[in-house]
């Protein structure tokens, strides 16, 4: 059984981590979670990103957040990646499986998965 005591233990472990994280200029991964995104399947994409980023040990460098309608509903689920000093990457028609590859190759390996980007979708 999950208990509140476990939560207390998590809190004690996290205390130091929180302080560490504040000073970092990390990568931001943003998932569109408006009606259009949700209907197109953004929830499993978001959850795959949250889980994958943390399980791959990227949790301190990469934050995964949600936003509203990005304005390109026909391309949902949309995931945007913001990195300091680099151009924004827009991934379109995402799935949980594609998210795994983005974590592996882009967030971990530093190489954009070009075939999933909006540029490739429009070409």
């Amino acid at each position, binding site marked *: *059984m*999950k208990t*509140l005591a*476990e*939560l*207390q233990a*998590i*809190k004690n*472990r*996290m*205390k130091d*981590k*929180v302080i560490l994280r504040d000073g970092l200029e990390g990568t931001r991964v943003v998932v569109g*979670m*408006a*009606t259009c995104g*949700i*209907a197109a399947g953004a*929830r*499993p994409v*978001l*959850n795959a990103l*949250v*889980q994958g980023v*943390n399980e791959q040990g990227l*949790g301190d460098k990469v934050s*995964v*957040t*949600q936003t*509203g*309608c990005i304005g390109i509903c026909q391309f949902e689920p949309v995931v945007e990646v913001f990195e300091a000093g680099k151009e924004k990457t827009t991934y379109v028609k995402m799935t949980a499986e594609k998210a795994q590859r983005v974590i592996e190759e882009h967030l971990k390996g530093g190489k954009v998965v070009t075939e999933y980007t909006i540029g490739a979708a429009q070409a």
Partner: protein
Amino acid sequence: MKELSLNILDIAENSVKAGASLTQILIDETDNRLVLSIVDDGCGMSPEIVRSVIDPFYTTRTTRKVGMGVPLLKLACEQTGGSLAIESVTADQNPEKHGTKVTATFFTDHIDFTPLGDVVSSIVTLIQGHPDTDFLFRHTRGENRAELDTREIRQVLEDVPLSSYEVISWIESYLREQYDDFS
């Protein structure tokens, strides 16, 4: 929407956008009837806005103020023979007690009833996206009950964000465990 849980996620987002400090997501299943209520203490809506969120074609709006979220929920419940109701009080009308309550009633034995789907995933997603607002979730089905109140969790965690992965994972397991006993 493929699952009702996705409608729940979508409608609850409106509550957060309305500045709610507490959003309650209540599912009550009795016999063949499922009542979903999403209750917030946000800014509320005027009667005119309430009409327009129910029917997106009610007004010839110039700015995109309302979307398809509520109409999709309305469709989902009405196609089972159920109905949707919205009660709302604006902060101007009552500075002490304002907010919106969306109630959707479904008949679960109707062939067009959309399955509830992964509700836990929707609740976890809401908390991950909005760690600074509170959610009360309660799902009852006969004798069974699953419940989560982020205010209690917040009290334990103090300044550790609810969106921390360890916390989110704990919340997910905590809820899934409660569903193990559901029949």
